[in-house]
């Protein structure tokens, strides 16, 4: 169901009254959220809080049960192809084809997104993720951390204005995790809006302009970064989610 009303303020993302149920399981119970252009929003929350569901709805993979979602002023139901051109999702699953090379994977997605100057762009992103030497290697031969870097490359290949990251550092060893972290920092540039979910409080606080905590399908806490006491945030988190992590 959609409100039928255009978002009044041109934010990058506007969500009103969003709910989502899977049968009897209520994953999201009423979310209202606004994300400004160029902002980096970080979403914390325990397992089952609804973080992945929220990101999947925002990235058009899943439809809401009720409520409205607008991306760049457009309702997600209205012009799906146009919206999808401008957004991207990087998740802990890579969306890559193991038997194809890095280059072939990027070429495939580049063509699906009608990326102009594709060869040049592929070259650029591969350099940015520092995998020039593995360009013609099959994804299956890369380490998990390297695969995730290719996935990020895939994510930014078409230069999306909104980038969603769903626990991108999950399953990575510490070294790979650090490499990814440095890259994540570079994603929120050029006016690109970033929404990231993560379990890692420290990293999230480093990267985010604004933090929200999701618990059992609701936003239980919101704050801008400069208002947060990083040292004590763990306590704040535990308090609002009523759980230890």
């Amino acid at each position, binding site marked *: 169901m959609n409100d039928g009303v255009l978002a009044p303020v041109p934010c990058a993302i506007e969500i009103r009254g969003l709910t989502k149920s899977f049968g009897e399981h209520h994953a999201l119970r009423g979310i209202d959220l606004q994300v400004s252009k160029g902002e980096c929003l970080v979403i914390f929350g325990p397992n089952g809080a609804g973080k992945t569901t929220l990101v999947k709805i925002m990235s058009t993979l899943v439809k809401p049960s009720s409520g409205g979602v607008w991306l760049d002023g457009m309702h997600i139901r209205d012009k799906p*192809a146009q919206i999808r051109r401008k957004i991207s999702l990087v998740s802990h699953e890579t969306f890559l084809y193991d038997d194809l090379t890095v280059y072939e994977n990027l070429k495939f997605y580049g*063509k699906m997104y009608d990326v102009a100057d594709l060869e040049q762009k592929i070259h650029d992103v591969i350099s940015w993720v520092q995998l020039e030497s593995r360009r013609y290697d099959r994804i299956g031969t890369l380490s998990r951390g390297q695969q995730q870097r290719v996935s990020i490359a895939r994510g930014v290949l078409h230069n999306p204005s909104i980038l969603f990251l769903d626990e991108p550092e999950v399953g990575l060893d510490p070294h790979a995790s650090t490499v990814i972290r440095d890259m994540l920092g570079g994603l929120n540039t050029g006016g690109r809006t970033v929404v990231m979910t993560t379990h890692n409080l420290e990293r999230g606080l480093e990267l985010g302009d604004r933090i929200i905590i999701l618990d059992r399908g609701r936003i239980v806490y919101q704050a801008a970064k400069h208002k947060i006491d990083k040292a004590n945030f763990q306590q704040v988190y535990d308090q609002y989610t009523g759980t230890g992590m």
Partner: protein
Amino acid sequence: MNKSFVKVLTVFRKDILAELRTREIVVSVLVFALLVLVIFSFAFDMGAGMGETVAPGILWVALTFGGVIGFNRIFAMEKENSRLEGLMLCPVDRAVIYWGKLAGSFTFMLAVAVIITPVFLVLFNLPLLLPRLALVIVLTVIGFAAVGTLFSALAINTRARDIMLPILFLPIVVPVIVAAVKATAPVLAGAPWADMLTWLQVIIAFDIIYLVVATLVFEFVIEE
């Protein structure tokens, strides 16, 4: 729309490329179809001179059950690494995804048929050069692929994905199996065109109807 056509080809090329590297679909379907051929030949005691009567049926049973194995893989391969989500994120009509995967599944099935049919003809001591048989096979594989690709996408999203595909696929393709067998018999017997014309028309009608229906209905299968 030119753009859509290019994207259909892009999806198709991706599948062909992956299959050329691993050959997993074609080889598994081929081996299975061959086994079916052989088992059915034993089951029908091929020495007893019934060859011509049951031969068309045996060929199509082998291709049908091989198809069931193959179509399962078409979308099952997109479940790994959540590739299907990657596809859904792309700014394409859902029908483009269907046609891209359809092109792939048609090609793989045809490849299997091209290899299996000469084996079949040899086993049954039939002439090898049968262009009319090629026509029947191509037309029928189109119908198989139209239905199989659709139900493959459906079956992988259920809890019993391997069982679900044959249960959905087989009843629906009954008309085209009957028509294929009836069109094959005259070819093997060297009978005139007229004997198979009606059956070819049935297969073509089935193909057109299901290509249209599947195109319309695919987005409901793949999108919530």
